[in-house]
């Protein structure tokens, strides 16, 4: 029989991995949105500058 320190370690790992995965997924989704917006803002700003010249 396994001691208490070892029993159910896979459940603990799974719980912490769920937390990590949720946070990472959220950050990746929001960061990709921001990166896309930054690219679009740059394009529009360039376009506006060209039109203003």
């Amino acid at each position: 029989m396994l001691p208490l320190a070892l029993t159910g370690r896979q459940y603990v790992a799974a719980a912490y991995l769920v937390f990590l995965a949720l946070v990472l997924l959220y950050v990746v989704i929001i960061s990709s949105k921001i990166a896309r917006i930054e690219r679009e803002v740059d394009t529009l700003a360039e376009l506006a500058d060209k039109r203003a010249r």
Partner: protein
Amino acid sequence: MRSRPLYGKGLRTLSIATAVTLAAGFGLAFFYAPLEADQGVIQKIFYVHVPMAIVALCGFVAGGLMAIQHLRTNDRAWDMRSYVAIHLSIVLGVGVLVTGSIWGKASWGHWWQWDEPVLVSFLVVFLLYCCYQPLRFSISDPERQARYASVFAIAAGAFVPINFAAVRMAQQEIHPRVLSETGGSMPGEMRLAFLVCTVGVALLFVTLWKLELSSKNASEQLKRLRRRLEDTPLEAAAGASAARPPVVPARPTGGD
């Protein structure tokens, strides 16, 4: 030409503080807090599950308070803050339900207990807030959308503490009560690790809240910039070029 970064003020500092606090909290949980005599290492799930639950419920209430501010001031920024807080709390709610189920399976041998008031009440709150987004996006008029969403957020936000109090008064089944009047039966080391983890998850919530607000603000700015460009005829733009400085997107506030 490259615009300035679209992230809100202080986000980098906040991100570092969050990472340090969470790492410290989990480090304390695994290497400083003693093993629980009954559950052993399985009890370590407590340090991620309970802080997420507390922060998610506080996030729902905060969303309601921000919605009150929106209705009082009619400032759309408060509606956006409320929306992001609720959205983030739903994400944490998913984490609470999944980690709770894993803990339940490890500890009780079941993924879920339908006769346990704490579990079912959290599920009810979670499902209630799952209705928030469909309600919000079913209304096309932005003014009405913001107003209805705020009313929902206030009503649901008021339900959270009532629900919490009702669960406290209900008969305890197998789920332990963490925030008891006696301060629980945690030894000092466990309590310290738990507190640091809770502060870490709270900081994580604020960081992600600010990050998503930055994204929303930037998206709004982009829409405005695009409208401005579409509304300005080529000739008018050329005529005004001498008088107007080049268009540079302003930096969004990111909820500051």
